[in-house]
C-alpha cells in the first residue's frame, strides 16, 4: 500500500475531530479537560517503564518471579500496576529453549497497565496477519534471529487474558542492580519481538 494510515498525516481527520470535540463540549456531553487527563495518563504515566519494573524485579527476586509466573495479575499489582486491559495478566517466560511472542490478530489487544498503548506496528495488518503464520521470518525482519532449536510460541490474545513476556536476563548483567536492569527491558522484549538489551547497548522499543 502506498499510504500508511497509522503513520501519515491526516489533516482532514484533524479538522473533523476538532469539530466533533467542540460539538460534544457545547452539548455538555464531555469536558475537554477530562479528555486531556486521559491523554496525559497514557502519554506520561502508563507505559513500558511499568513493565520494565516488573521484569527487573523478577530477575533479581526468585520468589517474586515464581509469584509472577503463577499469578501475573497479583504479582504485577504488588508493584502498583493494574487496571483496564490488564485485569487478568499471564506472564510467559522466555528461556534458552522457548521464545514467546504476543499478538492480537482480531483487534489489537495489549496489556496497557504494563506496556502502555500499543505501537503502530503491533496494530498493523502486516504484524497481525503474519506473526502467526511465519513468526521466525517476521522476527528476523525485526532484527531477532532465533536458532532452529528454539521453539517459537505465538500467543494470540483472543480472550480478555493479557499476555506479557518475561525476557531472559542478558548475559553480562549479573552485577547490575535492579534499577540498572530496568533500562535493559524494552517494550519490544516484553512483546517478544526482541531480546532484552545487552548492558551498554541501547535497546530498540
Amino acid at each position: 500500500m502506498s499510504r500508511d494510515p497509522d503513520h501519515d498525516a491526516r489533516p482532514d481527520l484533524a479538522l473533523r475531530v476538532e469539530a466533533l470535540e467542540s460539538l460534544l463540549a457545547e452539548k455538555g456531553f464531555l469536558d475537554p479537560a477530562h479528555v486531556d487527563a486521559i491523554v496525559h495518563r497514557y502519554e506520561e504515566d502508563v507505559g513500558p517503564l511499568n513493565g520494565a519494573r516488573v521484569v527487573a524485579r523478577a530477575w533479581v527476586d526468585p520468589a517474586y518471579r515464581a509469584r509472577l509466573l503463577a499469578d501475573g495479575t497479583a504479582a504485577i499489582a504488588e508493584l502498583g500496576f493494574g487496571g483496564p486491559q490488564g485485569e487478568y495478566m499471564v506472564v510467559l517466560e522466555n528461556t534458552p529453549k522457548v521464545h514467546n511472542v504476543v499478538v492480537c490478530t482480531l483487534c489489537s489487544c495489549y496489556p496497557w497497565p504494563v506496556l502502555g498503548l500499543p505501537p503502530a506496528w503491533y496494530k498493523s495488518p502486516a504484524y497481525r496477519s503474519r506473526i502467526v503464520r511465519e513468526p521466525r521470518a517476521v522476527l528476523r525482519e525485526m532484527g531477532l534471529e532465533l536458532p532452529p532449536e528454539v521453539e517459537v510460541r505465538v500467543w494470540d490474545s483472543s480472550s480478555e487474558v493479557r499476555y506479557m513476556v518475561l525476557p531472559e536476563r542478558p548475559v553480562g548483567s549479573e552485577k547490575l542492580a535492579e534499577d540498572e536492569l530496568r533500562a535493559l527491558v524494552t517494550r519490544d522484549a516484553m512483546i517478544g519481538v526482541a531480546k532484552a538489551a545487552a548492558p551498554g547497548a541501547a535497546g530498540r522499543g
Partner: protein
Amino acid sequence: MNGIHDMGGMHGFGAVRLEADEPVFHERWEARVFGMSALAGFRLGGNIDARRHALERLDPVSYLKDGYYGRWLARLEQTLLERGVLAPGELEARVAGGGAPAAPLPSLPQGGPLESRPPRSEAKSAEPSEGRQLPTPPPHPFLRPVDRASRFAVGDRVRTRNYQPPGHTRLTGYARSRRGVVARVYPACVFPDTNAHFRGEQPQHVYAVRFEARELWGESAEPGSCVHLDCFEPYLEPDPGA
C-alpha cells in the same frame, strides 16, 4: 463474522514497518479520539465486546484505509449518532464551518440495550475524578464464576468447531476445525459471542489451546513453532481422532 478484521494468516500486507522513538500518539487528533472514546464508553455504557464488534462492522475498505484511530473515530461517530448525541449531518455542518453553538443536551441518552450493564474495561479508565453516578460495578470486569466444571483439562486433545457465526466471535478463521492440545485453563469469563449482541453474558470456561504450526498452515508451516489461541469452551469439542 468472516470480516477483514480476522487477519491471522492472510497474505499480502508486506513488511512490518518499525519506527524509532515512536510517540504514543502520532497526531493530536488520535489522542483526542482515544480520550473521547473512553469518555463516551463511560457516559453511554455498552460493553467492550459490542465495541469490538462495531469495529468489525465497519466497511472493509474503510477498515484498512482509516487505520487504528481512524476506525475508533468512525465507531465513535456511529455510536453518537445511534444514541442521539449527534444529529445526522450535524458534524458535517460543523466541519463545513457551521457556526451556531450546539445546545446542551437535555439529558444523557437513556434506555435501550446499551444501558443493560455498567461499562467494562477501558471505560473505567475514563472516569472523571469528580465522578458521576455509576451503577454498582460487578465484582470483576469479565471473570464470572460458573457452577459447572470445565469440560477440558490441561493436556486434553481438542478440536475447534467449524464455527462461522455472522456476528461477533473470538474464534479466528485460521483456527477453525483444527486440532490442538489444552495448554492452560483460565477462569470462566463473559462470552463475547453473546455479550456483543446484548444476549447476556453467558459465562464460559476459557482455554489456551496449543496448535502446532503444521496443523494450521500445512506444508508452508515454519518448523518448530506453534500458536496458542484462547478458546471459549463452546468453540471446542474433544478431538475425535484422539
